[in-house]
């Protein structure tokens, strides 16, 4: 350590000082490039150029390693003293993302110029990623030669992360994420990308039926004057109408009748099942010996909600029911000649011809009467490589779990 302090910067062997300088230079260069470009959002070239670039990168990395394996700088690049500042530099960018809301319109000229609201698509992010990949590549190669099974955990962790970074960076431009609005009984094959451009797909989708399964609605107490939900110790208090009696704020509520789907006739609600009908409940509310009964209804896009006035200050209201599950029955036809009927829902997408079809949303205004289903179609040809990297990392985590810290405390391979 003592000669480390006397060592001139850039005199061998390099240490944290050089690591910090290199990382800082990369970040500064990145931000400078970003600002010089006027804050443009970057995109990696699409297939096949990303593949070519990736292969060239791998070839250069491997030949540089083979050629200069014994060189001091190569040893430094494969060591912790280059790695730690690089990891911290990357962490710094991610911290920025943690504080600045991403994917929104920049609020100031400086934020726009530096690309702080779109950090993952900026020069500093791409350059530091590249640097990390170089370091990870070199450290992996260093531990692979000579080959030893003892390094299996190390290899899985580092090469796994390398693959994930490599494939997500290169694949980002080949990934398509499109939104498709499907109306019941209409066939749709056009979808919109992020920038609002319409794309024609080799897949045509007809929405046969859109279904929503709802939770029972919740009830709560509002203040008559402000119309706001009354807070209890700073929190909203809700109760789900899934039982016959409940307590809310000192009010005791007996549910005398609950109608899943109802319409108002005169002063009362009756079961009906037509577009726009809403849940309602007949309740008896008691507090301090006074008793009030009447109907509450959450209302819908055609019907007014109905509140039950309890006294001068409070009313009982029913909130719109929340979806438990929503699903779309689809008829899918592809250019390749496939003809499929299937149902998709959230967490249950469907795959066809390289596209994955997700249930995204619906017309929330109309709730369960929505005849619109919003689908998301995703094509991500690099996904298998990403997943392979993820599985390597999982296996690596398994090694960490089973073997823990290396017994010799790292003294064996120090660089």
């Amino acid at each position, binding site marked *: 350590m003592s000669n480390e302090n006397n060592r001139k910067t850039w005199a061998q062997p390099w240490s944290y000082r050089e690591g910090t300088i290199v990382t800082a230079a990369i970040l500064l260069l990145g931000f400078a490039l970003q600002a010089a470009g006027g804050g443009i959002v970057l995109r990696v070239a699409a297939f096949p150029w990303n593949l070519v670039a990736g292969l060239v990168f791998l070839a250069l990395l491997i030949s540089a390693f083979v050629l200069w394996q014994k060189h001091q700088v190569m040893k430094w690049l494969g060591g912790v003293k280059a790695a730690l500042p690089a990891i911290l530099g990357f962490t710094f960018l991610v911290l920025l*993302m*943690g*504080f600045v809301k991403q994917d929104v319109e920049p609020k100031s000229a400086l934020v726009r110029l530096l690309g702080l609201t779109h950090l993952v698509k900026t020069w500093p992010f791409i350059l530091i990623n590249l640097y990390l990949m170089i370091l990870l590549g070199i450290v992996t190669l260093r531990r692979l030669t000579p080959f030893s099974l003892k390094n299996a955990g190390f290899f899985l962790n580092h090469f796994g992360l390398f693959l994930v970074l490599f494939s997500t960076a290169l694949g980002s431009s080949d990934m398509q994420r499109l939104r498709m609005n499907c109306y019941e009984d209409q066939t749709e094959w056009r979808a919109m990308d992020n920038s609002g451009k319409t794309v024609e797909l080799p897949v045509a989708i007809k929405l046969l039926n859109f279904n929503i399964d709802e939770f029972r609605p919740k009830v709560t107490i509002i203040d008559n004057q402000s119309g706001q939900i009354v807070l209890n110790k700073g929190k909203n208090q809700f109760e789900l109408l899934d039982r016959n009696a409940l307590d809310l704020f000192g009010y005791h509520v007996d549910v005398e009748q609950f109608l899943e789907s109802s319409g108002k006739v005169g002063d009362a609600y009756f079961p009906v099942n037509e577009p726009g009908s809403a849940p309602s409940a007949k309740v008896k509310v008691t507090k301090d010996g006074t008793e009030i009964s009447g109907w509450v209804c959450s209302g819908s896009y055609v019907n007014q909600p109905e509140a039950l006035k309890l006294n001068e200050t409070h009313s009982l209201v029913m909130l719109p029911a929340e979806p438990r599950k929503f699903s779309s029955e689809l008829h899918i036809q592809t250019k390749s000649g496939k003809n499929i009927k299937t149902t998709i829902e959230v967490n249950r997408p469907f795959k066809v011809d390289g596209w994955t079809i997700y249930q995204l949303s619906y017309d929330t205004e109309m709730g369960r009467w929505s005849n619109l289903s919003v689908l998301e179609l995703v094509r991500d040809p690099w996904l298998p490589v990403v997943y392979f990297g993820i599985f390597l990392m999982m296996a690596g985590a398994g090694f960490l779990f089973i073997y823990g810290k290396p017994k010799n405390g790292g003294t064996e391979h120090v660089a």
Partner: protein
Amino acid sequence: MEELNMWLDFPIYASVAILCWLAASGLFLSSGKKVMNQLAAGLSFTGTAFLLIFITILWLHIQRPPMRTLGETRLWYAIFLSGIGLATYLRWKYKWLVSYSLGLSVVFLIINLQHPETYDKTLMPALQSPWFIPHVIVYIFAYALLGASSLVALRNLFFKPTEKTITGPIQMADNLVYLGFSFLTFGLLFGALWAKEAWGHYWTWDPKETWAFITWMFYLVYIHYRFRHPSEHKRAMTILAVSFAILLICWFGVNYLPSAQNSVHVYSE
């Protein structure tokens, strides 16, 4: 029973657990006798078991995994942390660590007692996935392990240890970090695989994801630093303490950050 808010029973279970744990810590710290230590271990286990019973009943009652609100995750944390404290005691006989972790579990229960939950049975469709339970359990387990490791760090920062007295605890910190970090990695990767099923992309830099990633990176720094500098204990302990501070931001702080409005991960109170 049906109309009783389940959390109303919580003070009973929590009080029993707190009493057991306080008694256990007292016994661990005050007595050197083997019988007393065994009694303490038994008490500490009883406290944890009581909470396990409570959370099982709660789970059955609300018909969804109780992993959605901050109060619910604090409950899991108290369970795992006390369990890990006991396990490390049984494995390595660190009495101070089990006492600290029981103390921290007591703190989490007291926070829960002071902020009674109104429970919410609804669970949005995206969370209704087979990934939900493994993702959350693995994460909270990781947090509990890393929390225990940060106790080692704090102890070393405050009670200036000597070269001799630090070797044991720091090895324990390493063991806890390696275990905790492997769980953290699993949590992160499970989250990515789940996100792909639910939202079409494995990583969207949602604020919670971003902070979880930052937390992961800090522990990564600790692991690499320790690997390269096995005898620089003081700095390693500082890195460990900072990492835990970041973990706490990720867990509690994200809800309050301006970057986190509309995040799917923000726990409801």
